[in-house]
């Protein structure tokens, strides 16, 4: 039962993300490593496999699959594991690591974070705090409303 619930949750999270973007008029949606993952339950690219069966047929949005993003000093750019083979030089990062940099307030090089975007993210982080990056019960309890959308007429 637990497995079924977890599988359903992960699948729904992926599909809802794709459906929302379709309704917003987007034509493509990028899915990365561990997309909508639940802890370590899924393999890092299970979302790619699941979405491959659903999105193109039912959701009318084109999935763009990417592997782990990283910085390669040899290439001098952000690239991914599927595009670069300088494995010994790879400087890996994750969403958690980037959040950690924001939390420390240490400005990264512009290749990692455009300064104007970093400033905005930092300003929001300091104003609204951090908390969980996931919408769970704790997040809903502690969230600080930023704006409201009136009911559609």
């Amino acid at each position, binding site marked *: 039962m637990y497995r079924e619930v977890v599988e359903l949750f992960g699948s729904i999270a992926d599909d809802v993300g794709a459906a929302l973007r379709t309704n917003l008029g987007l034509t493509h949606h990028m899915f990365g*490593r*561990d997309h909508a993952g639940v802890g*370590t339950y899924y393999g*890092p690219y299970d979302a790619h496999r699941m979405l491959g069966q659903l999105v193109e047929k039912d959701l009318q949005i084109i999935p763009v699959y990417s592997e*782990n993003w990283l*910085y390669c*000093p040899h290439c001098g750019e952000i690239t991914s594991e599927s595009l670069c083979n300088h494995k010994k030089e790879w*400087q*890996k*990062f*994750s969403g*958690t*690591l980037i*959040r*950690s*940099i924001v*939390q*420390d*307030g*240490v*400005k*990264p*090089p512009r*290749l*990692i974070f455009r300064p104007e975007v970093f400033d905005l993210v930092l300003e929001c982080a300091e104003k609204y705090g*951090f908390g969980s990056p996931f919408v769970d019960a704790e997040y809903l309890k502690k969230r600080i409303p930023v704006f409201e959308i009136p009911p559609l007429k």
Partner: protein
Amino acid sequence: MADKYPINLWVNEERYQKLEKAGLAAMCQEMLAGLKCIQVYCNDAQRDKVLKVFPTAKFDSATTKSIELLPRKVKDKIFDLVVEKQKIDIMDEFLKQF
């Protein structure tokens, strides 16, 4: 050899100057496109205690194998202790207060 779990202390110009004065600047490494970092290591027990004492912290098991998302004030204290003791092996001492 026992596993070591780094805490990444990101280093800006101000921190770099403090590390230079403490003779630790050479221990900085370039982690991301030139972004400097000095790493303080935890063993298994220290990692577990850090995650217990600071519930927002997370062990990034999938990618970097590092302990991330410690509150800024906590990392500031760890950094200050590194500078004060002029070494990176300070986690036992840091965790004594908790």
